[in-house]
């Protein structure tokens, strides 16, 4: 596939910008539109764009590990965020735990945030695995 130099140059700048944006979307998701799912999609768009411009192998080098490995990590984080109230406070599964004092920039931090981070990782992992598999076999 031939790509223009414009796309190639732009994708190098867009990758970090999109990743930061995806994290912004992830964090604002509790009360406003956004969250782990959308954030994860945006993060995978960043990498897919990079692979369009620079070829799949370059993107794989950038990622270091196989994106499929994000699935168990993300699932584990989400699962533990649900399990935390059971283990720590003997409250039912998935009860929301919140910090008393708001943290700078993030605002109140709660177990829901960790659940969303897990979703973010799972969505990124699944999307990238699917897209990479399709473009490899194409």
């Amino acid at each position, binding site marked *: 596939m031939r790509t223009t130099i414009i796309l190639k140059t732009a994708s190098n700048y867009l990758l970090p910008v999109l990743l930061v944006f995806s994290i912004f979307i992830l964090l604002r998701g509790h009360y406003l539109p956004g969250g782990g799912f959308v954030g994860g999609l945006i993060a995978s768009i960043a990498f897919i764009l990079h692979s369009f411009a620079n070829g799949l192998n370059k993107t794989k080098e950038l990622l270091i590990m196989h994106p499929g490995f994000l699935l*168990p990590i993300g*699932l584990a984080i989400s699962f533990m965020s649900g399990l935390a109230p059971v283990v720590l406070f003997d409250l039912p*599964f*998935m009860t929301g735990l919140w910090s008393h004092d708001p943290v700078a920039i993030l605002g109140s931090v709660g177990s829901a945030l960790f659940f969303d981070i897990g979703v973010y990782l799972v969505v990124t992992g699944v999307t990238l695995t699917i897209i990479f598999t399709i473009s490899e076999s194409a």
Partner: protein
Amino acid sequence: MNEQLILYPLFLQMAISIILMFGWARIKFQKVFSVFGSIVSLGLAIILFSYIWNNGTQTIQAGNWEAPFGITFVADMLSVTLVLLTAISGLAVSIFSGASVLKDRLRFGYFPIFHFLLLGLNGAFLTGDIFNLYVWFEIIIISSFVLITIGGEKAQLEGAVKYFTLNILASMIFLTAIAVLYGITGSLNMADLAGQIAEVENRGLVQITALLFLIGFGIKAGVFPLYFWLPASYHTPPFAVSAIFGGLLTKVGVYALIRVFTLIFVDDPFLNNIIMIIAILTLISGGIGALVQNNMRKVFSYLIICHIGYMIAGLGMFTEMAIAGAIFYLIHDIIVKTNLFMISGVVYRIKGTNSMRDLGGIYAKWPKISLLLFIPLFSLVGIPPLSGFWPKINLIKAGFTNESYITVGAIIFASFITLVIIAKMWAEVFWKEDKELPLRSNFGYFSKMTSAKRMQFVVPVALLSIVSLYIGFGAEHIQELSARIADELVNSQGYIDAVLKSKN
């Protein structure tokens, strides 16, 4: 601490899947860990069962939101019994998978998905919220899609397409039914719905909603006009997968039918009549379908359908005795059907085929294994005192009390047909003269296996056969259990109180 126990089976299966996913490519680790995890989950299920047996129905509110608003998980006797049976079948199939599923399939995440399937099953049995039930159904069918297509053989994909299409359709109808139900009552909590539906004046609308549920669950359970996907797909995937599908997947549909039609849409003569007619037709058509099949797994697939009829008939009669019969049959059927598909796997390994015409002479060559396989086969028929006999007494007795003689006739007819089919199978597969089949190259014949590997085939079959024998010889205990479950189901006020009292 003790209500927390309800969710432990779910936590455990989830944790097992996640850990197995971390070891994605390490097949050996996955085999060992899956069996280990299944043993732990069996222990947990026993603890949960005995806790509920001693303390009665328990509930927990996920997320700590109060009852009709949050998602309730309810452990009553029916739920925990099914969780226990899932754990037993899960353990057997987990051992069986290690030896019988090809390496190429295991490399694509067979075991993690298998445990996700068990997670979905446990969740469906334990939830007390109808929308949450839908979510668990989704987890079950997504996992089962992966399991049925993994490996990607042509026949397998053909079966999978039929399986996929009809199950998606069933889910859609189920979801529509939930939407209508929510539109009528504004609630999704099953205990809350029970009270609200009783007060709705527009009975026609309620009946239509009930019929939507009947169709949605009916497709999944494989009842009369809706079963065609089942024999078209169950003989295609690996034997271990058919075993867990045959044992548990259709039974989730039956469970959902029992739950919804004893709790929410209670004792409506119109609905009960429809359920009765469906049950009779299922009994007859499934039995006749099985008569003409040649592939062992196809025979078992049709027998699944036929025997779903017993449980639905018990539900349709809606007396305590009939429901006790249905529950007893459910308990017996989960164990036996899982076992039967594993048996067809063992036969396949011995001779390299499942076609009854070509099989033969297994008894002469493998007498001990044949005697082991005899137990589940004839438990299915229900030769006293084996396990299939006892629930039928309940059902037939209930049929006579209700004076629904056609049902009694259909039940007896189905029993006889099952007897004919199994006797024929026994004669063809085990007693008939051995035929020389062309040897298949690259095929792991049973006779060439190391004894350790053979044990992996024999131990799960033996395990489930022992459970079957217990159900037959310890019928008194199972009868007591089924009677108690039936009592809880018919007098559903206990369930409703257990869910809604936790408000304060």
